[in-house]
């Protein structure tokens, strides 16, 4: 975006340093003078909240790793050691375990925000795909992290998920044995999952940098979905406006997060994971963590092993093609009356799949999962391509400034007339 490289180093040392490594200028242009659309609402603070959560997870995770041992006969006990012996170990573990759930709550809000306001449309396709990659890396990281306490759900979750790869024709069994480092989930599996669980967050951090780079290159989308036409009229500088708004969003989110840590720390967990892993006994009802449930429901709804696995991976992969599946030129659902309704139907279907994923695979639950799975794909593959052709969008505002004035015109005029009343 134009018009934001205004950094002037103050003082001799700053000038000396800036002429050798212009990092302060880069920080200034991306986090201080960077122009943000002036109509951004609180749904746009989740990017900052997610960045904070990545930091929280890396920090608490590195500290936990100092007390943990990845060795199958003792890993369960090591986690209990963290809970009981390590000073504030319970807090660190509850931050990390609930932090994973919070991370996914935030990422789902962030994704649905993108879906509602059409943030994936040109020129933001690469930005969106980088987001899908981050989401995939998050899922892999969370899954491997859940294996580390080596409880019953860890063990059997790892067994079910790694067995998904056995559905691949011909080489499936070999791939699964390579994932396991044995003939079943065991100590070698635990060790390599720990190594990867430590590695992947740093890969996420790398892709996050690309994601933010792409964002700052094309500029943020906004609730009205019209491009910035005039930096002076349509935008405000990142600092203080977006910075303060983001920090406020983070604080509110931390309050929500704290409620879980301090009052219901095991609400998102599964009691079976407090039973040590036992390769001879499968828990009666295996469920993955809540954030995987919609995909688990899709997996189980297909009565064929390979078909189920393909459907599950396709459900995620289809997101990467969204910029081309949605044929409408209008971004924001505010100006797309039909898409707005289909968006909410899709949101209900996604939550419904999550509920079905938590229920046993029998009777009416199976039929309902099949219907909702079909709708999930119909939404992306049929409804979105056709909607762009048949929908008559509402007239778009000429600019962001016009949209803001049309909504808040009276207040702005009143505020301009009596500036002294504005605290």
């Amino acid at each position, binding site marked *: 975006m134009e018009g934001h490289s205004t950094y002037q180093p103050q003082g001799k040392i700053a000038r000396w340093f800036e002429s050798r490594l212009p990092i302060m200028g880069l920080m200034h242009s991306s986090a201080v003078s960077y122009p943000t659309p002036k109509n951004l609402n609180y749904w746009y603070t989740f990017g900052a909240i997610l960045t904070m959560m990545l930091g929280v997870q890396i920090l608490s995770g590195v500290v936990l790793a100092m007390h943990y041992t990845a060795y199958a006969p003792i890993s369960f006990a090591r986690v209990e050691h963290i809970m009981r012996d390590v000073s504030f170990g319970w807090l660190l573990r509850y931050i990390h375990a609930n932090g994973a759930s919070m991370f996914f709550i935030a990422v789902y809000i962030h994704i649905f925000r993108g879906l509602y306001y059409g943030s994936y449309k040109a020129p933001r396709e690469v930005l969106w795909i980088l987001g899908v990659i981050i989401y995939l890396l998050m899922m892999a990281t969370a899954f491997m992290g859940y294996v580390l306490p080596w409880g019953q759900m860890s063990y*059997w979750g790892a*067994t*079910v998920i*790694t*067995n*998904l790869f*056995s559905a691949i024709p011909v080489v499936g069994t070999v791939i699964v*044995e*390579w*994932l*396991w*480092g*044995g*003939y*079943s*989930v*065991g100590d*070698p599996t635990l060790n*390599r999952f720990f190594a990867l669980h430590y590695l992947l967050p740093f890969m996420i951090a790398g892709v996050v940098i690309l994601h933010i780079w792409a964002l700052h290159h094309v500029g943020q989308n906004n609730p009205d979905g019209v491009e910035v036409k005039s930096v002076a009229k349509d935008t405000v500088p990142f600092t203080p406006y977006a910075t303060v708004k983001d920090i406020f969003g983070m604080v509110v989110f931390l309050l929500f997060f704290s409620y879980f840590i301090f009052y219901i720390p095991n609400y998102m967990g599964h009691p079976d994971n407090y039973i040590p892993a036992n*390769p*001879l*006994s*499968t*828990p*009666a*009802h*295996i469920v993955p963590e809540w954030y995987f449930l919609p995909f688990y429901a899709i997996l*189980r709804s*297909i*009565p*064929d*092993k*390979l078909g*189920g696995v393909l459907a599950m991976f396709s459900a995620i992969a289809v997101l990467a093609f969204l910029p081309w599946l949605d044929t409408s030129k209008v971004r924001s659902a505010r100006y797309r009356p039909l898409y707005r309704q289909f968006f909410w139907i899709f949101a209900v279907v996604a939550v419904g799949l999550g509920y079905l994923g938590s229920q046993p*695979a*029998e009777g009416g639950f199976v039929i309902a999962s099949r219907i909702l799975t079909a709708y999930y794909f119909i939404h992306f593959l049929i409804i979105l391509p056709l909607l762009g052709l048949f929908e008559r969008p509402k007239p778009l505002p000429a600019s962001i400034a016009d949209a803001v004035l049309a909504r808040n015109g009276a207040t702005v005029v009143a505020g301009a007339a009596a500036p002294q009343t504005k605290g």
Partner: protein
Amino acid sequence: MAHTETSGTNRRDFLYIATGAVGAVGVAGMIWPFVSQLQPDASVLALSTTEVDLSPIQEGQIVTFMWRGKPIFVFNRLAKDVELARAVPLNQLIDPQTDQDRVKAGHDKWLVVIGICTHLGCVPLGHQGNYDGWFCPCHGSQYDSSGRVRVGPAPLNLAVPPYTFVSDSKIVIG
């Protein structure tokens, strides 16, 4: 590279191809150890045979043993279990296989199978389901008294591990 009038190869072409070839071979050579280390290691392979004494297993009882970290079901089947398994027409099976092919001749009552559901790897529960065999609690697959899948989503029968009878009451798995 700039265009030159001379046809044929020169020293620079030779160096370019030789460097590329050594580089490619070197990279390929280093990829293999990094992939190969994923395989089951020698300590895992060392546990690859298990001896099982069959004499304490009562008629009608299913006992679970460990082999290569996996549960092995040893089922001392009653005569009616065997009859039931052999009476099923093959075209009713998801993964058609005769009961005779799944046991050792002369030891027809002993069924030895890997106790891992062929769907996604859970351990099925014995003496449950509608087919006198196993029921998988994870996704509802059912197996009969020959360990053959009768109700999906599992695609295959419970696998029969490699084993031999060393005497009438002892087998070696692996």
